[in-house]
């Protein structure tokens, strides 16, 4: 809600404030256009094809007119994995020199000139896709050029005044180009599924849907938890399989070809594995050093181990006193 209000405020009055920010950050000395000088074309049309065509037309017209234009929520198309995808940037600004600039308006704050780097990174990757899609349109527009720097607009400090920063997305562009070129086509993915698999919520039961999801391989990692609604499902499966990835991608680094918790522990404790394998010998050494240190500490009465067995007097007493209040 705050985000929408902020975006509306930034674009209000024919984009006066937005143009001021853009000029300040990208145009150097030249003054921003007066409010009447900026075209704000109507981009409404029927269906996504209609809207993308309307957007392309507006871009061409503004470029030919050598005018300032603000395209509010244009619609762009880009082929992804062999299928068209529609993309809707917050805004695209056309400048009289024919340069098109993507504008991303976000609701996270910019405090003293800096912002959450993970969020800015995500915004940059998002904007790079818009730039790629715009480049397709620019190919067919004489005199047009898509800027590889985008304008990021965020609330300033603790207010809802806008602050802007230029983000160079050349890196994200080169990465996205290669990713798009390497994506497996959707038809090829579908061809690999068992015959008759469907994820159509409207036409299958809960069990059918579960079975369909089960039939697809998943590469679970804990990062999925913050990004995907199916993550708990995949985590459950990965845990049941004893996959070491459930503990984080990083743990795999030193485990070589061992992929399950059981296999690693068996190798570490001498139950399995070839001692000539560096992974196995490193694990055994680590396990021995760890056991030695814990034994040394245990002998001196350190309660750390007790805490884990639940038998250490100090900790179990605390545990019983508090377990009721930890969670309702």
């Amino acid at each position, binding site marked *: 809600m705050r985000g929408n209000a902020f975006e509306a405020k930034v674009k209000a009055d024919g984009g006066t404030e937005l143009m001021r920010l853009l000029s300040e950050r990208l145009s150097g000395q030249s003054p921003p256009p007066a409010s009447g000088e900026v075209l704000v074309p109507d981009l409404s049309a029927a269906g996504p094809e209609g809207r993308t065509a309307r957007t392309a037309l507006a871009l061409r017209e503004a470029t030919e007119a050598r005018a300032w234009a603000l395209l509010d929520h244009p619609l762009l198309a880009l082929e992804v994995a062999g299928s068209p995808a529609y993309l809707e940037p917050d805004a695209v600004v056309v400048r009289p020199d024919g340069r098109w600039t993507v504008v991303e308006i976000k609701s996270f704050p910019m405090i003293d000139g800096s912002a959450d780097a993970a969020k800015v990174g995500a915004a940059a990757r998002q904007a790079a896709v818009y730039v790629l899609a715009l480049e397709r349109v620019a190919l067919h527009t004489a005199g047009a050029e898509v800027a590889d720097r985008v304008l990021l607009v965020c609330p300033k400090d603790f207010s809802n005044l806008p602050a802007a920063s230029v983000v160079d997305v050349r890196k994200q562009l080169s990465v996205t180009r290669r990713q798009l070129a390497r994506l497996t086509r959707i038809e090829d993915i579908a061809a690999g599924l068992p015959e008759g698999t469907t994820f159509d919520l409207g036409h299958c039961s809960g069990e059918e849907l579960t079975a369909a999801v089960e039939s697809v391989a998943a590469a679970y990692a804990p990062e999925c938890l913050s990004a995907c609604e199916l993550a708990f499902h995949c985590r459950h499966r990965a845990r049941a399989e004893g996959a070491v990835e459930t503990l984080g991608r990083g743990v795999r680094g030193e485990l070589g070809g061992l992929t399950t918790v059981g296999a690693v522990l068996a190798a570490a404790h001498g139950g399995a594995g070839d001692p000539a394998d560096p992974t196995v010998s490193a694990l055994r050494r680590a396990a021995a050093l*760890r056991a030695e*240190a814990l034994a040394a500490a245990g002998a001196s009465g350190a309660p750390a181990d007790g805490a884990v067995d639940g038998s250490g007097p100090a900790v179990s007493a605390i545990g019983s006193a508090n377990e009721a209040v930890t969670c309702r």
Partner: protein
Amino acid sequence: MSLISTLARLEAVESGRARPLATVRHRRISDEPLVLVPLTTAGEAGAPLGALVGTDRDAPRLLTVAQPRDRDLRFAFLGELAEAVLPYLDTYAEVIEPAERNETDPETGKRVKVEVELCVDAPQLIVPSRPGIDFVRLLGRSMRFRRTAEDDPDTPYPAPPRVPLLGRWLTHYGERARVPGSSLLLAATDLLNRHWATGQSSLEDQHLGALLAWIDPPEGVSGAEAALRAELDRDRGGQLRCPPAGPATDPAFDNRLLAPAIEGYDRARQALAAAEDGPGAEEQLARLSAAERDIRELLAGVMRPTWDAVWHGLDLLRALPEGERVADRWTRDRWSFTGHRDRVRAGEPPQPRLDDAVTAAQKLASRETAQAQLEAQEALDDPLVFAGRRLSGEAFLSEVTEVVMAYSESKRPSPRPLVTVRTDDRPHLEAGTKVFRSLDGKPQSAEFVRSSAEDADDNDADGVLVLRLTDRMGRGKEPAPGSVPEKGDRIAWTLFEHDQRGGPKLPDPEETPWTHGGPPGADDATPPHARAEAHAPDPVTEEDFL
């Protein structure tokens, strides 16, 4: 992650309970910490919603903001927070001991010892999670530039009296929390994760409830199962039984419980305003109070489990004996607290929004020193940490098999005995590599001479090392008693130094060189208004969120 910690996680998966990552406690837990459990408002980018705060686990002080968009209510909250926190800080500021500090005499330029005050103990702030620390910083940033009516009678929205001061303290604590090994401001999750490995990922370990479940599950339940419940279990109303530790709230709570309660509050307020002084005013006032009470109860309900969890975590940590060198690091925290106390008392302005070049470089250098020191001290205090360094070839345990007296080749020969040791470890040694052992709490150094593999058959000589002791044997020709190891001694050597030297002296900020923009404010890139505004309040608008 080291292989030893990875193994600990895997063992935790197998046993269903957390496994130790430490055998001693590596951070100070104060006898009377101040716990702060803050909440923020969803969609309002950090606007405070409520907090539990205090030093008495049975009687937290509840602070709430019934309508987070209302500046007056937010200011009232911040004012109450200041009244809850500052008196706690003040009690520590008064108890002092005399101490000495090295200072540069401004006239002679020489290093001289100066008598100063050092606070005997420092106040400690504990928040539930790492985002809690970020929120402390955000609060500090937003409050320290505020103006009170006393500061400036014309300020449009005067802040309650002690709010700017609290902002400066929270800023100081937030900065100090970035110094490795500091204990002034700690997150309960970080503390627990330092000492135990769970059978889940470090991302999931950020959930305080799940983390505690792995370490100390309820009777008869495995840690894995208890953690899963803590993450996912909901009551009939769809509310999490173990609410997130904040400061962000659960969307189901926001949408189903909080939003209607705030709407109710807004309606009651409008009704009260409409009633003015009319006959219904008293009744409307009662309704408003009831609506506010509802919100307070809701917030208390979602914060209390976190509050209790933080104290539960502190209990678990207190059961571990404190590492020997923790007190040394705590002394640095006391200096840090005392230093800021003195700056406030001297009437210095609030910390600037951005560090200047010299300050930034100084902070980075001191944090790098603190990091190296922390790593060395933890390894020396804790055999389990030491084991990790042995595994990585940075330390070794050895038994002395022979000591041969030798002397340096100078005019006044000093003792340089050759010590032959046997080890099963595989340290990364090259000729001349320095190694250290702890002798009466002070480091004694030696250098690696050779591995005696050359003069014996391979199998037998594997792990036989010759070291030359190079210091701490006194000034005489014969080494001081007890300063040279004897045959049969078991000695832990490290390849890393035990103490850290500070970095080079940096120029004064006024002498910042041209490569770094010259003295602060002199850079042409800094517009004049920005220079004047270094300590100026933030511009205020109708729709601020903090």
